[in-house]
């Protein structure tokens, strides 16, 4: 054994301890090990007392604090300056529509079908609307806030404002294209 250990680890065989040829040394508990053990016990006790008896924050308090630090999503649809005219300029831009198509393919296609003909969600290429009313503002709003209890997600939680505008522009551009094989019309007809 190395010198510095020799005072502690004597490696003395304990007399009488022999099991199927296995013997045992009478070495003490290693100091660092014991310190670690005591350390964790003290930590555990303090931790428990603090969180259980001394008013340490509960999980819901921690959540509340955390939620405060998260900025509330600015609801693009709450913009009161938004009118058919303000949107018209953006919706007419071919680049915006092209960008909207990319968003559409990534997020909307599973429910409204690739060509907009509808599948799980309604046909977006006819002139019938359940909520969208066929106006630019109407379409923008329904996409932003969704119809969550009917399975249309509120996209403003997930898409950036530019993406919202773009995808709304794309949907608007589909209006009245009446693709073949689309879902039968749902909702009211708007001319």
């Amino acid at each position: 054994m190395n010198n510095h250990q020799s005072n502690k680890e004597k490696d003395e065989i304990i007399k009488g301890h022999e099991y199927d040829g296995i013997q045992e040394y009478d070495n003490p508990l290693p100091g660092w090990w014991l310190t670690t053990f005591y350390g964790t016990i003290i930590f555990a006790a303090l931790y428990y007392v603090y969180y259980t008896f001394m008013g340490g924050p509960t999980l819901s308090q921690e959540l509340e604090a955390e939620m405060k630090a998260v900025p509330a999503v600015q609801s693009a649809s709450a913009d009161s300056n938004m009118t058919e005219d303000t949107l018209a300029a953006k919706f007419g831009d071919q680049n915006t529509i092209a960008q909207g198509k990319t968003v559409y393919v990534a997020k909307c296609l599973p429910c409204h079908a690739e060509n907009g003909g509808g599948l799980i969600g309604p046909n977006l290429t006819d002139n019938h609307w359940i909520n969208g009313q066929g106006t630019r503002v109407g379409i923008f709003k329904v996409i932003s806030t969704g119809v969550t209890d009917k399975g249309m997600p509120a996209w403003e939680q997930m898409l950036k404002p530019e993406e919202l505008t773009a995808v709304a522009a794309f949907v608007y551009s589909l209006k009245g294209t009446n693709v073949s094989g689309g879902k039968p019309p749902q909702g009211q007809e708007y001319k």
Partner: protein
Amino acid sequence: MSNQNLLNTYDDDIVRKFLMACLIWAGVAFLVGLIAALQLAYWPLNLNLEWITFGRLRPLHTNAAIFAFAGNAIFAGIYHSSQRLLKTRMFNDTLSAIHFWGWQLIIVAAAITLPLGYTHGKEYAELEWPIDLSITLIWVVFAVNFFGTIAKRKEKHLYVALWFYIATIVTVAVLHIVNSIEIPVSFMKSYPVFAGIQDALVQWWYGHNAVAFFLTTPFLGLMYYYIPKIANRPVYSYRLSIVHFWALVFLYIWAGPHHLLYTALPEWAQTLGMIFSVMLWAPSWGGMINGLLTLRGAWHLLRTEPTIKFLVTAVTFYAMSTFEGPLLSIKSVNALGHYTDWIIGHVHGGALGWNGFLAFGMAYYLVPKLWKTELFSKKLANTHFWIGTTGILLYYISMWAAGITQGLMWRNIDASGRLLYPDFVETVTKIVPLYWVRALGGLFFLTGYLIMMYNITKTIQQGNAAKATETIPTPAHQMGSHEHETGHRKLEGMATVFTVLALIAILVGSVIEIYPTLSLHKYVKQENITSPYTALELAGRDIYIKEGCYVCHSQMIRPMASEVLRYGQPSTLEESMYDRPFQWGSKRTGPDLARVGSKYPNLWHYRHMIDPRTVTPNSIMPNYPWLVQHDTDFLILRKKLSVMKNLGVPYSDAEVSNADIDAQKQAQTIADDLQAQGAPAGLAKKEIVALIAYLQALGQKGVKK
């Protein structure tokens, strides 16, 4: 051989049997594991076959690994070492045989029923009630046989390995019985008496201690016998053995709730789970120290003896896992790691490294001994060692990376207050390459195993079991000796007292944690109370359980900003108060489903269940086409509701007696809606509709939005 001769010899035949069983089942466990790993990397490998779909295959893998591979390894080692440590033959050869064949039968039953979808839906406790009963019975046979052997021992004192065996046998019995208290509904279906948070607590008290008392204590016992024996060195410190043994058995039992951090479990219990896990670190390392320092002066064997290589590496993995375990129990670390593949990596460091390598080391030592020959090839054993180690490292590192990557992606919120990765599937596709690396690791491990099997078969062919018979030598300390002894030494001579003390040590934590939650009403807030599932939803829930959806989906939204943004308000304990079994889950391979109800139209679910990729491109969830073919069992619903009612779920008598009719009505409504939206007609009777009813009910039973 004459009877007298038989009594003078050890029963090694039973050891050979258990060892063979261990090695054969190991192959099944590893192979099924590899297939499951490949299914996650490449979903088409679910093959559209219900019996081998991931949700059913994963429980088969875990059960095979734990109960078939590790179980038989433990029994082989215990039967071999106990006889030698007690200097007597096993108590009763017939009991040994019943234990052996009974256990193998249970495994076969598991291998048949799990793919068929008979399951409790509780991890590592999946097997249905007839099998549960058989396990109890066989475990009692084992216990009688083991304690009978102790009773007729010739060696007065119990060596530390035996302490660990005693703790194992007693605790596993308690865990298994309490966690399996259930009411049968039919031949292969039952509901647990515990619900919601109770069931969660009992299950993870069981689940964690299955790791502790099935995969740790018995293996520590084996380590204490085989390392000093093979290295021919004295155990490093007897005092350390005492302290770490008692600390371990006392502390371990409390740690279960660390699987339930940030859940709806009352916070005092969560905190207990965390702090006891932290305190477990040193006692666990006590075992590692005694294992490794015993080898001082024998390190050269590491170069020449493959057996020692395996054992030392096993102990090293044990040290890693038992450091990582307490770390993952710390709340803030757990917040990141929980539900991710980090946990899967953690488990496999233990299972492949510690249990696997210890069992392999033991096998390489035992086979030549039990067949009286030399190992066929040390070189091949070394090859096995290196391939196996590489496999474990590939597995561990890939899962660690996958877990942390995904955990960070889930919680990433951008400056505008939106999730950076709102599509769950994005966080999945990101780690699919790592799933391939993991599968490669599994392939390495399996290859190593095959090399071992070849080596061991060759060894057995050149050996001769009949010549291996050992006569029992005289013990060091006769039973009758009356030396003056004090303290622990005295206890080591008193097997019954020792066993009772060990039982008390594990009961303290169990009772303190579980007892308060038994009166659930104390925690339930009236204003949050929920209504129970309708009959059809319950039928759907049982399909969810049968298909093993819980292995990929959690139903427990944690109180964290990112989860609230992704899934909604944190889950409450009232939301699962009627859940038998609870389905909080432990792994999110797919998103949390606690609030999925009304998120999507019925048609979305219909299409998603038949082929998830039609609505979520790149999904790795399996297809469930058979749900549109199988009929829902409506008739059994009265029985199911009546069992639930007896367990305290507030169903009216009319609801129970009309269960099937009500269910059919609700099914018709959903089927009509599906049809109106474009799905085929005639779905009302099909399982898919019941499942959709359940999914649409999740999170809709009374919470305020």
